[in-house]
């Protein structure tokens, strides 16, 4: 299992291939990409030690809550273009419902709890994306899926 924060491309195919084990029947993947909301791209930064520790806790909670066999989480940082990969979560389970539930749980918790920030870059002016910290926001208000 892989938990990683870095500027590198996400090796999605390799992660999915590694998630396949004999007892796995379902692999659900969430890929968040930089959406074109009239922006030129995105700048992403992380408080890496804190974010990695929290992602590890989120993975453990997911493995406790759902009948899943593995969770991989990769979040990119640095300057990302429109259509660029932002985050990938790969959740493998014997059955599909647990794989869907685990994958969805991890992305929701990641957005709420991991020390990562995004800035939308635009000719009209850059803008830090409003986060989900103390003031929970319904739905998506940013360009990250």
């Amino acid at each position, binding site marked *: 299992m892989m938990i990683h924060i870095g500027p590198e491309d996400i090796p999605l195919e390799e992660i999915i291939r590694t998630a396949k084990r004999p007892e796995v029947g379902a692999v659900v993947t969430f890929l*968040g990409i930089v959406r074109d909301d009239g922006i030129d791209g995105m700048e992403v930064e*992380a408080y890496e030690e*804190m974010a990695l520790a929290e992602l590890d806790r989120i993975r453990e909670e997911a493995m406790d809550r759902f009948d899943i066999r593995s969770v991989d989480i990769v979040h990119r940082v640095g300057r990302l273009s429109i259509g660029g990969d932002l985050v990938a979560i790969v959740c493998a389970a014997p059955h599909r419902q647990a794989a869907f539930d685990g994958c969805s749980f991890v992305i929701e918790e990641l957005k709420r709890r*991991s020390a990562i*920030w995004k800035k939308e870059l635009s000719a009209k002016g850059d803008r*830090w994306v409003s986060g989900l910290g103390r003031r929970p926001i319904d739905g998506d208000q940013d360009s990250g899926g």
Partner: protein
Amino acid sequence: MKVNVVAFANFREILGKEIEVALPAGARLRDLLDLLAKSHLGLHEEVYEPTGALKDTAMIMLNRVNIDSQGGLDAALKEGDELAIFPPFAGG
């Protein structure tokens, strides 16, 4: 005493990613923020409401624990403390 300040997102743009600050013994979090605000334009407005309360969008951790549970602005600082300041998380 010296404390270490790490900042992210809009606070990094104001403060830099990591700075070391010398403070008199007995200083509290409020003193540190006031000292930083003197030398970093825009910090005060990003941290404080006009009422003087901490803004909801200024999250401060002292040694990786939220300051709300450590006395808030009155939290006492000591040598080697790590203060982190950042806005609400916006990853994913």
